[in-house]
């Protein structure tokens, strides 16, 4: 067997860089608690400025005035590993994710399909380049050797005969031993694997756990390496988070192109298509706008997916700034869903709520039908929001009119009866829309109940803000 190891030396960074406009700008990923932020990953242009992995942010700031920072997100790394495994599944039916930040492919059986190794390797590199992932590729007779050699080499292809010599020259610190073992070897002055290999086996066995000799044997292929096989998932989920608020849907097109291309690549790996998928425009506080994209038939051509999605996205009016865009495709045509609704025996007159909503939408237009959610804000005009789907916030325990006017109107009734009030509302200084008003519940001459206010300190001008039913 021959194993190719594809190592992703800066997976977390690539995951961030691929969605940034300017990948050349100095960028670092941060981790650690707020009081001690540490540079977890550093891109090449930041490295050129002297920033290093493991530095504290304080030191980095002392060194370099301007560079961009983003949060290091381990779950993102996990996500992209899954994505890359799905991609690799196209080239080999034996793909393993057992080593972090690396993909192991058994390629012996794929060579007939994808050509001799240098050409196969070239193809892998081209595709990874296009997807935006830095990588190192090593081919070796066993999976562990491929993985370990990738620590120090790129583009290496080793056969059985060359393996012992290649392994022998490996520095001890890069051989994949547990840290305490590596430091024990270093403490004994042993620098290369061949020095350890040359020691009497019995003496090594006396000083170290069995795993050490086993590891060496596995590297040389004397012991088999058991690997878990990757099983592709049956749905796709891609997400891009912005570190700024996106206010217009056109600004979403660049990330959208990324997502649809990732989807297409995933579909190609699974040899299937997509018939409908969902775009989620995520807003602050966990709410999101949904955009559904449906196709007449299963597709997987990236340009077509992008155009279709774009057609649905562009007309969308953003109700709030978008903080992240995600794409979910559950429905992959390998399992064509049973058309259950065709045979349901629902009585004609009773209409499901969803259908009613959709019918109203169809008649009145998408914008005319919306959901309402309460928001925790003392300002009446901000206490509601129109949202497709909002998180439920229980409203304040105060009487509020069912019909709130979007623009207050001057009160034309001259002799209202005050039923309650004044209720003073002073709030909202933080976003430049501070209000200071005194509200009254009044009954107008014609018996209607209105909610009126005057600006605090200016009792001469009353405005109607809402009507009680």
């Amino acid at each position: 067997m021959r194993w190719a190891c594809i190592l992703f030396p800066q997976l977390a960074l690539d995951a961030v860089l691929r969605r940034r406009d300017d990948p050349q700008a100095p960028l670092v990923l941060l981790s650690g608690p707020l009081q001690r932020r540490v540079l977890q990953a550093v891109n090449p242009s930041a490295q050129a400025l002297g920033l290093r992995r493991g530095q504290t942010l304080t030191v980095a700031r002392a060194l370099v005035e301007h560079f961009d920072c983003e949060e290091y997100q381990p779950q993102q790394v996990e996500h992209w590993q899954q994505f890359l495994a799905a991609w690799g599944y196209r080239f080999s039916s034996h793909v393993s994710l057992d080593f972090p930040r690396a993909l192991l492919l058994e390629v012996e059986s794929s060579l007939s399909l994808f050509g001799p190794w240098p050409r196969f390797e070239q193809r892998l590199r081209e595709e990874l380049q296009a997807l935006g992932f830095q990588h190192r590729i090593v081919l070796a007779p066993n999976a562990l050797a491929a993985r370990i050699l990738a620590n120090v080499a790129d583009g290496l292809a080793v056969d059985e005969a060359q393996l012992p010599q290649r392994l022998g020259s490996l520095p001890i610190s890069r051989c994949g031993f547990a840290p305490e073992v590596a430091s024990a070897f270093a403490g004994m002055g042993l620098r290369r694997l061949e020095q350890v290999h040359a020691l009497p086996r019995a003496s090594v066995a006396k000083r170290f756990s069995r795993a050490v000799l086993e590891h060496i044997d596995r590297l040389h292929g004397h012991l088999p390496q058991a690997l878990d096989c990757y099983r592709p998932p049956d749905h796709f989920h891609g997400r891009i988070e912005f570190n700024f608020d996106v206010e217009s849907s056109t600004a979403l097109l660049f990330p959208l192109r990324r997502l649809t291309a990732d989807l297409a690549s995933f579909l190609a790996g699974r040899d299937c298509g997509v018939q409908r998928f969902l775009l989620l425009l995520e807003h602050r506080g966990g709410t999101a706008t949904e955009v559904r994209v449906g196709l007449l038939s299963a597709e997987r051509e990236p340009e077509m997916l992008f155009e279709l999605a774009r057609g649905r996205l562009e007309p969308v009016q953003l109700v709030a700034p978008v903080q992240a865009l995600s794409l979910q495709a559950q429905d992959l045509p390998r399992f064509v869903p049973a058309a259950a609704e065709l045979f349901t025996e629902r009585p004609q007159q009773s209409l499901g709520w969803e259908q009613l909503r959709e019918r109203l939408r169809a008649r009145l237009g998408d914008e005319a039908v919306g959901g309402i959610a309460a928001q925790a804000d003392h300002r009446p005009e901000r206490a509601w929001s129109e949202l497709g789907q909002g998180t439920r916030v229980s409203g304040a325990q105060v009487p509020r009119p069912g019909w709130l006017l979007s623009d207050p109107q001057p009160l034309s009734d001259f002799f209202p009866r005050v039923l309650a009030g004044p209720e003073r509302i002073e709030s909202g200084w933080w976003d430049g829309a501070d209000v200071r008003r005194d509200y009254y519940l009044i009954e107008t001459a014609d018996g209607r109940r209105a909610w009126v206010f005057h600006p605090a300190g200016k009792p001469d001008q009353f405005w109607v803000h809402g009507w009680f039913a």
Partner: protein
Amino acid sequence: MSSPYAELHCLSNFSFQRGASSAQELFERAHQHGYSALAITDEATLAGIVRAWQAAQAAGLKLIVGSEVQIDQGPRLVLLVENLTGYQHLCSLLTRARRRAKKGDYQLLAEDLDETTDGLLALWLPDDDQNEAHGRWLAERFTQRLWLAVELHRGPDDARRLDQLQGLAARLGLPCVASGDVHMHARGRRALQDTITAIRHHCTVMDAGHRLFANGERHLRSLPVLAAIYPAALLTETLRIAKRCHFDLGQLRYQYPHEVVPSGHSPASWLRELTQRGMRWRWPDGVSDKVTEQVENELQLIAEKGYDSYFLTVQDIVEFARRQQILCQGRGSAANSAVCYALGITEINPVHSNMLFERFISRERDEPPDIDVDFEHERREEVIQYVFRRYGRERAALTAVANTYHAAGALRDVARALGLPGEQIDQLARCCGRWRRTLPDAERLAEAGFDANNPALHRILTLAGELIGFPRHLSQHPGGFVISEAPLHTLVPVENASMAERTVIQWDKDDLDAVGLLKVDILALGMLSALRRCFDLLRHYRNLDLSLASIPADDKPTYEMISRADTVGVFQIESRAQMAMLPRLRPQNFYDLVIEVSIVRPGPIQGDMVHPYLRRRNGEEPVVYPSEELKQVFERTLGVPLFQEQVMALAIVAAGYTPGEADQLRRSMAAWKRHGGLEPHEQRLTDGMLERGYSREFAARIFEQIKGFGSYGFPESHAASFALLTYASCWLKCHEPAAFTCALINSWPMGFYSPDQLLQDARRHGIETRPVDVEHSDWDCTLEPARTEQMAIRLGLRQIKGFSEPEAQRIVAARELQPFADVADLVQRAELGARSRSLLADSGALRALAGGRFRARWAVAGVEPQLALFSGQSAPREAPAAIPAPSVVEDMQADYASVGTTFGPHPLSLLRTELDSRRCRSFRDLLQLEPDSPVVVAGLVVGRQRPGTATGVTFVTLEDEFGMINVVVWRDLAERQRQALVGSQLLLVKGRFEARDGVRHVIARQLHDLTELLTGLTIRSRDFH
């Protein structure tokens, strides 16, 4: 016509993150509105009540002491103190609630109110459900002392709410009273109140939603406004309650603990007795008349002011330390009295010191005496535990520190509450200096990329500006103890500290003075540990019995050493700034040391005072006095004010202050940076001095100097105590350098230098240093016989990073039984674990048993646990293994990594050829170099300092194999070559060599990072601080 009103429910900013105004603001505003009284009812705390009391006196308005509390699963109420008994009940109630919760929190249980609450009035604050059961429950406990508080804040329907509450009160037969639930003094604080609410809930104001108040009505409203809201009867009721509350904090009476006086004695007679005993001990050959007279005067004054018990309390603690052989030293205005010398509190002999101390306690000003006692830093805990044991936890507790917002913290919290992203919060906070109390200016903000005109940033700056100086939380004072005769919780609530087994009273040290509570400061000082260890070593190895008091005074070689700035490791005068001063000042006697200790401080430098003193001392400037009277004050410092005491004397002599006013000035000096408040003194001083014939210009200069003193100005009494330790440590370094270095390393971490630097300094003084070795080393560093006059220093096992003391002690014990045969023998008899075996091998300590560190590591890894059955049999022989020998560089790197110093060649000597080719001069070469010549130097960066006082200058210390080279990097170079400056471990500097008065340094023109030459070598570097 509006009816009079007393506010009975009002929070100050000591209800942390709730109250948005200080007591001072509240009282000023309440007074303006014509309120009849103001209650301060902070939630479950009396931490702000002393300040409220002072504010009330200043505003001339009555304070009612109280507290708002939430009973666990019960009603919320305001407790108001009617009389002294009520105050004591409130203190113990709050103490109980605080002690059962974690720090900063409280839990008041319903059953706590089953005990007597006499003297406390209660206002019930019904919740929205208006739970009648709560009211009935309270009515049973506060018979005739319970009111229903009606608080109207322009809610949706105040009229209905008033009706409902009055109905509720009528059903329960309770009187109603109006109150305001005041959170701020004026409506203008609404934004700040919203912000701190968000800070309290750890969210942004945008997300705080209904946790914010709907409006800004919770402020001190004017009487006409109140009259429009509340029925007159409810307002009048407030006055009835206010009239019933006649407690004043001035009624508190503190009593000293009785233990310190044996029966049959009064405090005064016992103090006299102890002092006389001490005089016989201090002066076995008889006491001079002068001393007798001084002691007599002091005792009379102490008795007159009633401070006998205070001196006895301190004496008792010091006596305990002496019995335990814990070295200690008192300082402070009262510490350097003849009585304290006789009692053993200080070692400064009033006869030997030819200083003119100010009177140690002033008759006129009612300031409690001030004695701080420093103890060995590693053994202070024993003293603290003794205090708790002797007086019990009920009667002894630590003082609190009310931590207040400084600029960076305020900006940080406000920016977070206003939703600024984390990165920008950091950048914004970085624009403020550390501990600064002022916001960064627009220019500084612009440098960091912020636009001060941006509305969002403007909001942040405004709010942060309001928040600066607000108390944030209580923490424990490092060593300020309050001890009393009665349980402390009858004086002040006691709560838990973050350290387990510590309790803290709710008052800050400043509050104690105002209420007349006495505190003893039990502080920690590393140098005392080192000195005690050094005395022990000398007794053990050199048969020399020395103590602080018996070290020979006025030793010429010691002062010569000091004048050479050969002071690595000694107390106070070892820093770079001090060392630069020493050759210019050339101290010749003890008082010169007192000046030296005080002169290099941020205060005097800012006040432009150091140089005049030096110039005058070196005869470069005539010594003149503005007047004959001031000559007396300033003669000992050549006409230059250096000490707080002198500034006070100056105010008395030249500006006509009374001693009490001068003390006020001293306090304002210490506080003006935080709170301001020097302005009235400026006018007063100037007028006073003009009146007495001093020039306006002189007055202005004096005032500038006073401001410069700030909080750093050093009292002469403290300086004298410090100088004594400085002299003792210098004497030891001069005459017993081996023992002194050994003691310093064993007391580390302390002081300015690392053990590596101390050892290098010792070697340069011809002392032999020996590596750590299991056959010779103890846990501590020890002295061994050597061919030289000074003994050799043997490194202790404590220097091995990560090695534990119990294992070291086992090694020593096993070795004393019988020397080790081999590594296996060592491992077995000392029962060493795998980790410590490796640590020993890596340190080179097994050299004698197993050879170099690589072979040793291989050998210890091969030791197998031996079964008892086979003990005595040697293990079967192993096949030989090819283990390499370490190179010189590998040994050096391992030395640094394990014991932090090397006994092989210094890394720079390994690089010297390389450095020669770059024309680098060594430290030794510089001694011969002409001043003002161009020079290239290189060395390990062992220090980088950017003192706040030297604007923009970075001082870099380079170490090579011969010594330390001081480099000065000016601001523009530092900015141009930031990376080389901050990032280098090995730095090459091109520049100009300067030398004056024995002070040598290199002014950098260009920096080069040579760290690559050193790859792998780690040198700990003292970074900016």
